[in-house]
């Protein structure tokens, strides 16, 4: 206890700078003990005086103490997450200490749990929209650098996919499906009321994006609420169409200062390793392919040695000697490039959090440092974050608070996919290419075939320093009326740097500096009044003004005098550019809610929002929403029923908006930069389209929330349907106009599905077992494009075989329908879905027949001519199951996630699974190739350097389209809390040891790296396509958690 006292005063004096002398004033006190239904003391339960900010949290022994209370009558309220709230009247007498003990009973359905809603708070019982909450407990298990992955499998309707397992890699989140094509599809993140505007990396050509949200420390977060339907989200107007993620950071609680120290460390490794050929196999298959192409003799070996070396030998001894030398190197090499570039990375994280306060001041401070090596060599992320949240009662009616997070991170990135070392290690780095030469130097680093050289030769760094926070003032002139003014913002400075050496004879570098400044000012007036415990009325009105200013300037340079010089200006300037973006929004919002007898509830909201992204005539959008609920279980005929202990019916309708990603897509303008011969030029760069307006997403949500057996089993079933209209789409123009396309509102999409969630307290007592599960079904359909068919390339993606087609899911594929190998000749065969006709209209091959490549070619058709629409990039069903167990000091939590009903296209399969000519290594699948007539296999005959043979590399067929179904043990944590008898001796309140495994294991038939893939970040058309993308990471960590 002495330690607590020291800490408390240290923090209160040093950090707050405010004396805590008020604790010793001449007033009354209240103290007592809080226990659970089994009589065990409850740690950190909150006991407070209703209608005031005065209160305290209980310590590890369940003891709370509220000092300095003015004499009078109060209602004392005890709350604890997951327990029913207990209220008790009390009279405080000056100079005396009253004792009030509480025994709290578990509220399994957590109906009184606070839920953060737009511009306010509610309780689970009263919410009529669709909101998923994820609390601190679940966040703690997530060992990744970003909080987003903590939502994986834990929130119905929310699908979270990491692009890859690289530290600080991009993460995409979809709330109730994908509805936009070229507008943003990610939800907005609102951190303590501040809209997050961070942007991914700005250096191009790196093959993967970084994630700006790693600047937010997950350990700072108390709860995450995902507003999923329009009746919950539409009050956020702009961009709320994709859902709103409200993040509430931790606040200090009244009572003795609590210190929470966490340290964890472990290893990071790839979840799976792609099986590739070794050198012997490669040479053998190359020879076979060569002979298959009708050749005799030895197959020509790809050039593994450098051109310089080759030409040297040619000059000295002729071509034959050079070829022989090259072959000799190839024959005597057997490199496992994946092993050369992958590793077990070391990761560690230390967190110190301190929170506490008294009746008038609370504070919370957190410092966290994380150092994470990726599973690839040369790849790491270091991050330090500092948070300081505090709230002060200036008077009984006026409160001032602030939440400030500061972060600094260094992401030593590696290029990924087609641009990166891991991509090269599985492709152009053939197993017959050595890593090092006889002198121990990198072998032929400039040849594009040495994956290790790509890591060592590309120094890619992202330094980011940012601060995000807000300051607010609330004023309660009379009971129930709250005025709030909240000013927040974000500042971020980023320095992206890339230096390329080793892999090029002319080293170059790029330097980009970005600044982001945003502010948001929210002013609201809220009024809430309960009359006779029957009527509850709440009203909210407000104005929000937002401003965003981003600037990026970049410089490239090359031709350095000496390798020591790496800054662009030290060499010859290759180019420079700068960019600026400014966006403004102004919104007026209102909401009114009414509850009758806590049984019938209705709520309506509207937001009128203007965005500078639109032209004068289309600038403002109005986004209304209405929802209602009926708690049937409060009706007389159900009240007190133990089996059906809670039942609420709810339904909502609303309209949400979405804006284009570009800043001024409606205006016709000229831009600079088309320079010639040192003269600055300006050129027409966008055609005017003043009619461009908001995308509208109309949403209907209906469902029930239920509790069974005294709420031991509880959950919800919801149905949603959303129709997005005025969908922004690129309209292709005839290029003879001098422009390729414009953006128009001319399409629509629909998403619908069910969400089921259940929480079951299977066992309570000495052995605790809880199961939480959620399942989401989704069906996504492009309902109208005005007849246009758009490919992935048309919509900003990098893969052309995904399409936007009416009546199909977004990003459906068009591929030739592969039907295996013709046993007679080893050809690929395809099922025809239409008649093939010759120039005179005669059918030369009928629909429904299976045709092999040779026949197809003889008829004058290509594989592209017989493409058919197929597949679905988005899972039809996904979800998660968490089981938590507790026994004595042990706790175990296991999270499984799954997704099914979708496909993954291995765009690299064309090269990796038979495309020998690209000088790519091959997937071990090709060992099953067709070899002789009669062979039944799925892998066609191999060819090498054969212009007449099918070039598998050019043909997009369903051979590479696989089922993406998986069941993954996403997270597994086993902890042990030391008995109190031991911790007391060392003056700790709690000490817990744990082991945590992220992405522990997976069940899937998918043959690539990892079925959780994400191409082009947020681009909705080219999801579930992978091209040499790095796999997810498995993280195995052990840690210790100390509270005092």
């Amino acid at each position, binding site marked *: 206890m002495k330690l607590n006292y020291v800490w408390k005063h240290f923090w209160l004096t040093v950090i707050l700078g405010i004396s805590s002398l008020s604790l010793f004033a001449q007033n009354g006190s209240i103290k007592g003990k809080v226990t659970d239904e089994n009589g065990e003391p409850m740690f950190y339960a909150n006991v407070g005086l209703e209608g005031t900010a005065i209160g305290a949290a209980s310590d590890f022994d369940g003891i709370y103490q509220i000092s300095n209370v003015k004499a009078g009558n109060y209602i004392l309220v005890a709350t604890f997450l997951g327990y029913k709230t207990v209220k008790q009247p009390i009279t405080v007498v000056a100079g005396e200490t009253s004792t009030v003990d509480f025994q709290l009973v578990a509220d399994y359905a957590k109906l009184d749990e606070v839920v953060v809603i737009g511009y306010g708070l509610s309780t689970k019982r009263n919410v009529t929209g669709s909101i998923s909450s994820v609390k601190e407990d679940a966040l703690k298990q997530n060992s990744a650098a970003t909080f987003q992955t903590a939502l994986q499998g834990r929130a119905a309707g929310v699908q979270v996919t990491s692009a890859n397992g690289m530290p600080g890699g991009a993460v995409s989140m979809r709330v109730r499906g994908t509805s936009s094509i070229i507008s943003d599809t990610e939800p907005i993140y609102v951190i303590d009321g501040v809209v997050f505007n961070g942007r991914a990396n700005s250096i191009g050509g790196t093959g993967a994006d970084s994630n700006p949200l790693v600047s937010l420390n997950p350990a700072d977060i108390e709860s995450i609420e995902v507003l999923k339907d329009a009746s919950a989200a539409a009050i956020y107007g702009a961009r709320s169409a994709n859902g709103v993620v409200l993040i509430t950071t931790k606040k200090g609680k009244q009572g003795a200062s609590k210190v929470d120290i966490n340290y964890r460390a472990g290893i990071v490794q790839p979840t799976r390793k792609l099986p590739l050929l070794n050198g012997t196999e490669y040479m053998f298959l190359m020879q076979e392919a060569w002979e298959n192409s009708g050749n005799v003799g030895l197959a020509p070996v790809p050039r593994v040695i450098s051109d310089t070396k080759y030409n040297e030998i040619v000059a000295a001894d002729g071509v034959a000697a050079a070829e022989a030398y090259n072959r000799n190197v190839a024959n005597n090499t057997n490199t496992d490039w994946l092993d050369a570039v992958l590793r077990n990375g070391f990761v560690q994280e230390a967190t110190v959090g301190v929170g506490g306060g008294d009746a008038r001041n609370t504070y919370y401070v957190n410092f966290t440092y994380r150092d994470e090596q990726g599973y690839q060599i040369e790849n790491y992320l270091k991050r330090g974050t500092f948070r300081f949240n505090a709230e002060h009662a200036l008077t009984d009616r006026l409160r001032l608070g602030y939440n400030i997070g500061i972060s600094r991170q260094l992401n030593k990135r590696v290029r990924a996919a087609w641009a990166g070392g891991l991509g090269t290690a599985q492709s152009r780095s053939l197993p017959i290419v050595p890593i090092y030469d006889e002198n121990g130097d990198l072998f032929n680093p400039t040849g594009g075939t040495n994956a290790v050289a790509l890591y060592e030769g590309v120094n890619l760094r992202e330094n980011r320093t940012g601060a995000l926070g807000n300051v607010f003032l609330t004023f309660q002139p009379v009971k129930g009326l709250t005025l709030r003014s909240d000013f927040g913002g974000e500042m971020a400075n980023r320095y992206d740097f890339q230096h390329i050496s080793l892999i090029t*004879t002319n080293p170059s570098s790029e330097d980009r500096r970005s600044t982001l400044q945003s502010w948001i000012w929210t002013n609201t007036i809220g009024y809430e009044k309960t009359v006779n415990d029957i009527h509850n009325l709440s009203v909210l009105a407000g104005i929000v003004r937002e401003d965003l200013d981003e600037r990026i300037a970049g410089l490239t340079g090359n031709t350095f005098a000496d390798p020591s010089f790496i800054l662009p200006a030290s060499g010859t300037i290759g180019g420079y550019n700068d960019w600026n973006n400014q966006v403004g929004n102004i919104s007026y919002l209102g909401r009114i809610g009414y509850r009758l007898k806590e049984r019938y509830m209705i709520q309506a909201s509207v937001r009128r929002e203007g965005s500078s992204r639109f032209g004068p005539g289309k600038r403002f959008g109005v986004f209304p929403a209405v929802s209602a609920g009926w708690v049937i279980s409060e009706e007389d005929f159900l009240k007190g029923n133990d089996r059906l202990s809670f039942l609420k019916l709810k339904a909502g309708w609303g309209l949400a908006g979405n804006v284009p990603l570009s800043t*001024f897509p409606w205006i016709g303008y000229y831009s600079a930069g088309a320079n*010639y011969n040192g003269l600055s030029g300006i050129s027409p760069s966008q055609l005017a389209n003043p009619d461009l307006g908001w995308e509208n997403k109309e949403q209907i949500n209906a469902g029930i929330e239920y509790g069974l057996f005294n709420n031991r089993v509880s959950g919800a079933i919801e149905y949603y349907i959303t129709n997005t209209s005025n969908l922004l789409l690129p309209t292709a123009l005839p290029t003879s106009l001098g422009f390729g396309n414009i953006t128009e509102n001319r399409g629509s999409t629909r998403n619908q599905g069910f969400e089921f969630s259940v929480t079951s307290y299977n066992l309570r007592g000495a052995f605790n077992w809880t199961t939480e599960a959620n399942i989401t079904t989704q069906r996504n359909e492009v309902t109208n494009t005005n007849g246009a068919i758009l490919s992935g390339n048309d919509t900003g993606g990098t893969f052309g075989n995904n399409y936007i087609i009416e009546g199909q899911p977004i990003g459906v594929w068009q591929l030739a329908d592969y039907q295996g190998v013709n046993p007679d000749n080893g050809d690929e065969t395809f099922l025809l879905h239409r008649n093939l006709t010759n120039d005179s209209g005669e059918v030369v091959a009928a629909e429904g027949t299976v045709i092999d490549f040779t026949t197809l070619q003889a008829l004058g058709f290509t594989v592209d001519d017989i493409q058919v629409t197929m597949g679905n990039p988005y899972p039809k069903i996904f979800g998660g199951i968490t089981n938590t167990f507790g026994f004595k000091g042990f706790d175990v939590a296991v999270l499984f996630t799954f997704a099914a009903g979708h496909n993954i296209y291995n765009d690299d399969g064309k090269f990796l699974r038979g495309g020998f000519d690209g000088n790519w290594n091959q997937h071990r699948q090709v060992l099953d190739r067709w070899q002789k007539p009669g062979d039944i296999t799925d892998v066609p005959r191999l060819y090498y350097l054969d212009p007449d043979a099918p070039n598998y590399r050019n043909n997009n067929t369903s051979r590479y389209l696989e089922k993406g179904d998986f069941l993954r043990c996403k997270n597994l944590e086993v902890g042990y809390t030391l008995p109190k008898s031991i911790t007391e001796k060392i003056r700790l309140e709690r000490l817990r040891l744990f082991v945590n495994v992220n992405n522990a294991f997976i069940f899937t038939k998918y043959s690539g790296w990892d079925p959780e893939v994400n191409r082009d970040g947020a681009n909705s058309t080219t999801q579930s396509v992978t091209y040499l993308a790095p796999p997810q990471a498995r993280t195995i960590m052990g840690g210790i958690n100390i509270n005092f």
Partner: protein
Amino acid sequence: MKYIFSCPPKALIGVFLGLVLGFSSCDSVLDDYAPYDTLTNDVAITTTTNAQAVLVSAYDAIQSYYVYGGQHVIAGDLIAEEMVKTGKGNTVFEEDQLITKTMSDINLITAVMWSDGYRAINRVNNVLAALETITDSNIEANRSRLQGEAKFIRAITMFLLLQHYKSFGQNLGVILKLTPSLDINDRRARSSIADSFAQIIADLEDAVAKLPTNNSGRATSWAAKAFLARVNFYKGDLTAAGSYANDLIENSSYSLDTTVTNQTWTNSSPEVIFALKSIATDANNGLWGTLTRTESGRFGANADFYAKVTADAADRRAVLYELSGLAIFINKYKERDKDLPLIRLAEMYLTRSEARLAAGDEAGALADLNTIRARAGLAAATADNLADKIFEERRLELAFEGDYFHNLRRLEKNIAGFAWNSPKLVMPIPRQEIENNPNCEQNTGY
């Protein structure tokens, strides 16, 4: 204990209401946001300075790799197989399609030559339209020159497109786009080959009239005349072609560059009539990257050509080709920052030579041929088989400068096993144009 803040509640209500209502009627704050670092259409070309700047962007546009920055050479030479793969680096399938004469209507090279070409034309059309309305004090001194440059760029861009997209069987040339694109519903049809030539020649003739003879690295009247020689040559009007070539040879200050031992002309070479400028901070010599051995170097000369250019040991042009293994690298463009010549005096001699021969002036034709041969270090030729000799000399002299493929078709010679007028040698109109422009007819075979 007294708190620092003890404002009376009424004052605070006032402050709050002030904050909340402070935004009333403030929709107009959004008017403060305007496109940054751009010029909106209404004000973009209202001054002579800006008209010049837009014209600069048109030069930049034709410098595109897919227009006069590289593909003006590579596309034709790949189709004619004068240029072949060296085996170094990977070719992409768009390039392979040119080589195998299996171009698709989504082939990137054919699609972007069209779109980038028309992008340049649209820029020029914006300048020409604006020049009619600008009234500032500088306009009178510059209008004529700016019109001349604009028409020159429009003409040579349309000519390149005509060379590759014209369909003989259908008698279809290019879309004659002469006004700025402002209406997104504008859909134009293609003109006949003759009308296309007529428009190009009219633009060039107007440019000759309006351009100065010297224009600091930009289009000149001489450049326009040189292109008139080339356009008429390919139109089949050898008389006009010869006449313009003669004007260049006799009356201009250009002369054959004898100081250089290889033909990678310096920027100040007296022989280059018009070149696209390339400077260190704006290097656009795309041929440098594609052809130079130390760069991508994925295409080189074919063996037949190499045998011819090395047949006479005295031929100074042989040093431009570098045998490395089985590959023959082309070193005509081996400096990154150097200008890319589009037309030079040697072509005028060869054009005049052929025009003289057609007009019956055999001696004059031979003299022009031998002028070129002498510069290359070769002995004078004799008059027998003169037409063939001119053809061969033109192949060697203007090699990998975007002439050979078109010359083969002009002379109705087979090309890599295809008849000169085979639709397989003609680029397809890009699918995006066909799908979105019902008035634009596709070439036969696509």
